[in-house]
């Protein structure tokens, strides 16, 4: 009986090293006595011997060929998707640039009139200077400033004299 290996670990479901398991199952296939021992626990365990069934060589070849071909097709599709993605991005940038340039130029044509530049402060007239004709002096002067309003012809002129500010 020493030629008959122990079936304990197989029955208990211990994961055996591949080679050891293959030897055990090969023995089971050949030894009716050991099969009977195994079946005593559970006849369905006999199906473990199916692990010895070889995979036909042509099946293995077909798996390799079909898998590699399918992966190569996926690699091609991935490359095409990447090219498409970069192309779309580049096109979007160009379109955005063109639109931006268009609206920028349009903005230039409709630009509001230039803002008036700051007019140099008018120096205060000398204290003894005569008031020009048509001048109307405003009595309400803000702070230290003197505000003078006058009409010359059709033009209204307002002058502000502020010694503190030098105007």
């Amino acid at each position, binding site marked *: 009986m020493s030629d008959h290996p122990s079936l304990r670990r197989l029955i208990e479901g211990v994961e055996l090293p591949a080679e050891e398991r293959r030897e055990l199952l090969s023995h089971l296939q050949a030894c009716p006595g050991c099969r*009977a021992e195994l079946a005593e626990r559970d006849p369905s365990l006999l199906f473990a011997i199916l692990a010895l069934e070889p*995979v036909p060589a042509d099946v293995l070849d077909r798996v390799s060929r079909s898998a590699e071909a*399918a992966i190569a097709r996926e690699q091609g599709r991935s490359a095409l998707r990447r090219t498409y993605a970069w192309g779309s991005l580049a096109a979007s940038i160009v379109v955005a640039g063109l639109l931006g340039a268009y609206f920028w130029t349009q903005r230039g044509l409709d630009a509001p009139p230039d803002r008036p530049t700051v007019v140099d402060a008018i120096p205060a007239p000398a204290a003894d200077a005569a008031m020009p004709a048509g001048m109307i002096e405003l009595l309400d002067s803000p702070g230290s400033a003197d505000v003078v309003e006058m009409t010359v012809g059709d033009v209204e002129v307002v002058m502000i004299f502020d010694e503190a500010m030098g105007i």
Partner: protein
Amino acid sequence: MRDEGELIRAAVDGDTEAVSELVRRKREQVVRIAYQVTGDWEDAVDVSQGVFVRLWKGLGRYDPSRRFDTWLYRITVNAAIDLVRSRERGLQPLPDEPQELPASPGRASAESALDLAELRRAFARLSARLAPKQRAAFVLREIEGLETAEVARIMNVAESTVRNHLLQARRVLRLGLEREYPGLVPEGFRKSEGES
């Protein structure tokens, strides 16, 4: 020869030789499990092709701290179960099994080597009565020889669920063997229905 980790890294980096080598190393395991679950070599080849494409697409997300084979088996079992289920929905009919029982060799089988082809026919017929997940659990545990914990990880279920699948599967297969393939069951052994 590159180790598996190196091979996977190279495959992730787009090394087509590494991809081919990975397919060559794993194809037997994949097609065998696919065959055990679907019961048909053609289906097994189709399943295997899909498995390797999914594997390649998912390599970038593979976590090297986890066992590679667990992930591979999971993809394989799920793909095989999906195929079996699609057949059961009537999209692809199961191949017709001959109704006559094999000639019972009686005591002869108790004294001779077991015919693998006969065993295969018995399994194909009887396991077709199992739910796909029961069949998958039985294949992984009893035919592929994986531990219950590993089967649970592959099938992404609790160990108790695996044990339940196995209990159901063994009961159906045992009863079927006794009734329809008595020649395969060694002489002198017969368990009555209802015993565990």
